[in-house]
């Protein structure tokens, strides 16, 4: 069981946030279930994208920014966007399905200053060539990309997995694979599937008018599909991985008790996992970074945290256990003495829920973007693009 008081609530907010978001295109080579994006505009003009990046930085004070879409790697100016961001000293992360990622493009992006790629890979995508494969079998594809980026040297590798009822039981197997690859994989997000329910008891309004949700082309769904919680995903993983202990969280904007982000950070080397970082370490890293640099930390530029991290064992009981485990490992097998120490973050996300008159969003969301000069939640972009403003649900009483 999770106890909130053992976890650190990130100190982030909209105007002081480590993350930002920009979309370069709404075109994509895949059509994944659960995707928020509709094809409306195609590739965006580079000047507009640059302006949004500048505005986003100004409004959010972000340390890193996600370049998303659509599929950003089919955007013709993707290298320019990365370069522009890196020049502003924002750490660029590309969110991609990986289909267009070649070793040559990876090298070019690295040269432009790309810090990280998050690859969206899951079994619901029905990728050409991987149809019918389950999540465990897709670890092979994940391995391919992890190796590719490891060999490129300098671009960190992360994954996104949308979680459905039928893929929930595979989370331990994916986690297992990630832990084994801690030297190659720095991040994974497990994102519970959500979509707007199209049922008779919910009406939708935008800008003071009733709207027809079918304009968004969303298909009806089974409500049990859209209620996976972060806690459920946690139980599923922790059941098999006893060392899976989250350190920090974000709560819901309308319902404070919901957990929107739940974050665990492993420390280990290619020879094995030693343990996790605790809440105190995460807190210290955030506040010290903010005091010194004036902004919160999105992620470290180098995934190698080194043995110096164990100094924090003085204040962090979780890290103390990890340090002890590391010492035991060194004693058993001297290779541990010389192997590099990495960190790997595992995020459990639980996106939007509808309440009457409000939407329960991620409070202090990392993925805020600029749309027409205004900061909005990126998950709601198409509400603005199609209806001009955010949708408000009304649930009949």
């Amino acid at each position, binding site marked *: 069981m999770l106890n909130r008081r053992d976890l650190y609530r990130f100190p982030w907010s909209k105007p002081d946030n480590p993350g930002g978001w920009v979309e370069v295109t709404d075109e994509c080579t895949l059509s994944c279930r659960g995707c928020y994006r509709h094809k409306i505009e195609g590739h965006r003009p580079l000047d507009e994208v640059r302006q949004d990046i500048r505005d986003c930085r100004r409004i959010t004070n972000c340390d890193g920014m996600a370049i998303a879409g659509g599929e950003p790697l089919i955007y013709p100016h993707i290298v320019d966007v990365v370069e522009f961001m890196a020049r502003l000293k924002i750490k660029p992360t590309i969110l991609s399905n990986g289909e267009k990622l070649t070793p040559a493009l990876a090298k070019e992006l690295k040269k432009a200053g790309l810090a990280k790629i998050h690859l969206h890979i899951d079994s619901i995508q029905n990728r050409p060539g991987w149809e019918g494969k389950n999540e465990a079998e897709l670890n092979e594809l994940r391995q391919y990309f992890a190796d590719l980026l490891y060999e490129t040297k300098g671009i960190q590798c992360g994954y996104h997995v949308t979680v459905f009822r039928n893929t929930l039981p595979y989370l331990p197997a994916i986690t297992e694979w990630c832990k084994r690859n801690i030297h190659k994989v720095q991040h994974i997000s497990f994102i519970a599937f959500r979509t707007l329910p199209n049922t008779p008891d919910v009406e939708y309004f935008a800008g*003071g008018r009733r709207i027809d949700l079918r304009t968004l082309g969303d298909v009806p769904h089974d409500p049990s599909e859209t209620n996976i919680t972060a806690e459920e995903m946690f139980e599923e993983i922790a059941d098999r991985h006893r060392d899976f202990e989250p350190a920090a969280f974000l709560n819901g904007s309308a319902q404070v008790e919901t957990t929107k982000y739940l974050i665990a950070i492993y420390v280990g080397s290619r020879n094995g996992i030693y343990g996790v970082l605790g809440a105190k370490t995460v807190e210290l890293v955030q*506040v010290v970074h903010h005091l010194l640099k004036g902004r919160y930390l999105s992620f470290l530029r180098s995934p190698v945290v080194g043995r110096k991290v164990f100094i924090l064992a003085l204040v962090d009981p979780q890290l103390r256990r990890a340090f002890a485990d590391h010492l035991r490992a060194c004693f058993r097998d001297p290779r541990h003495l010389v192997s590099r120490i990495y960190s790997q973050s595992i995020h459990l996300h639980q996106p939007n829920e509808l309440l009457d*008159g409000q939407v329960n969003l991620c*409070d202090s969301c990392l993925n805020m973007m600029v749309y027409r000069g205004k900061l909005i939640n990126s998950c709601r972009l198409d509400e603005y693009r199609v209806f001009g403003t955010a949708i408000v649900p009304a*649930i009949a009483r």
Partner: protein
Amino acid sequence: MPIDRKRMYKFPWSKADNPGAWVEVTDECDLSCPGCYRHRLEGHRSLEGVKNDILLCQRSTNCGRISIAGGEPLIYPGIVEVVDFIRRNRMQPVIFSNGQNLSRELAAELRKAGLHQIFFHVDSGQDRPGWEGRSESGLNDLRQFYADMIWDLGEVQCGFNVTVSRKTLPEVPSILEWVRRNIPKVQNVSLIALRGLDFSEGKRYMAGGKFIDTSHWQSGSSDSREISITSEEIYEVVERSFAETRPSAYLSGTARPETHKFLIILYLGSARKIYGTVGARTVEFNEAWTHLRKGRYMAGFSQPRIGKKIFLLAGLDREIRKALFRYLGTALRSPARLFDPVYIQCINIQQPNEILDGEVNLCDGCLNQMAYKGNLIPSCQLDEFRLYGGPIMEMTEKSGEGPGDGPSIRGPGND
């Protein structure tokens, strides 16, 4: 000088990790102030219900202080017990009152029960019996009366709330003039911009999928200018009169992050002179350090007589550095000032709940969340829940019907 966000600290507070929370003990009151969010529906609440709400707030917000509000909490029969209950649960009890029922005996009893601070709502819009027709500066006599009473009591901190309307905005400096002179006695002043529903032509409101009747809704105006004073406007008025004023921290709006919902100014000074303000760095360091040590954030100060040791931070904080220079300059001219104790005082400019372009813009990181039927809600929205079952949304067309016009979609489901 316009507000520069880069020179301010954004408080790290959130719903789940917040220094403050709110509980209401009654919705009865002996005044009817314009801008009051509360309607008389339930009267005094049961002590049991109040205690449960306090514990729920503590659990869900991690708060270190609870504001006891209403209605007028001093007419609630169990008020002393509520204060005592909060104190016994290791939080600071703070009362928000109009002061009318505060006798010296009750004050002493509340102090004994562990009251940390009392905020008096005193302003000219209230039209108090005996003080009718007074201007804001005319009301400084009444403020002085309460400030002296709390000062004589000892141990309890004193604050004031002032609702700022278009009419009283120019009078803000005369209030602050008095407040600053009373820095030993007055720890907080909240200058709260008047807000309410916009009742102008064509505005209709909906909750729970139905249009609602707002004819009984108390706070609002058919003149939208009356309910649109921003914290920047109030700040400008303050800064024009007191040039050393600098805000050090803020809270932003939920729908419009560029709005300043709380704007905090921390004066440093003695009864004879304000030396300057505390800067963002010090506030940040204090919040971070308190949270690392105690596992929760802090609002307000444990020791308003902060002393000259605050000047040690001049090396890190340019605002304190400026205050130190003024202090040294003053001491050079009249060395006796070196013996004056140094106090800290907080001016909080607030721009409450509002609807901007159809979106509800609340205070992000609000200190005044409360429990209602087992859920945490912003206290300013309580009567939306009590009267209409949930938050109000604004409708622009009378029928509420109409297609959403927007670009057409190619893609999933529509290709």
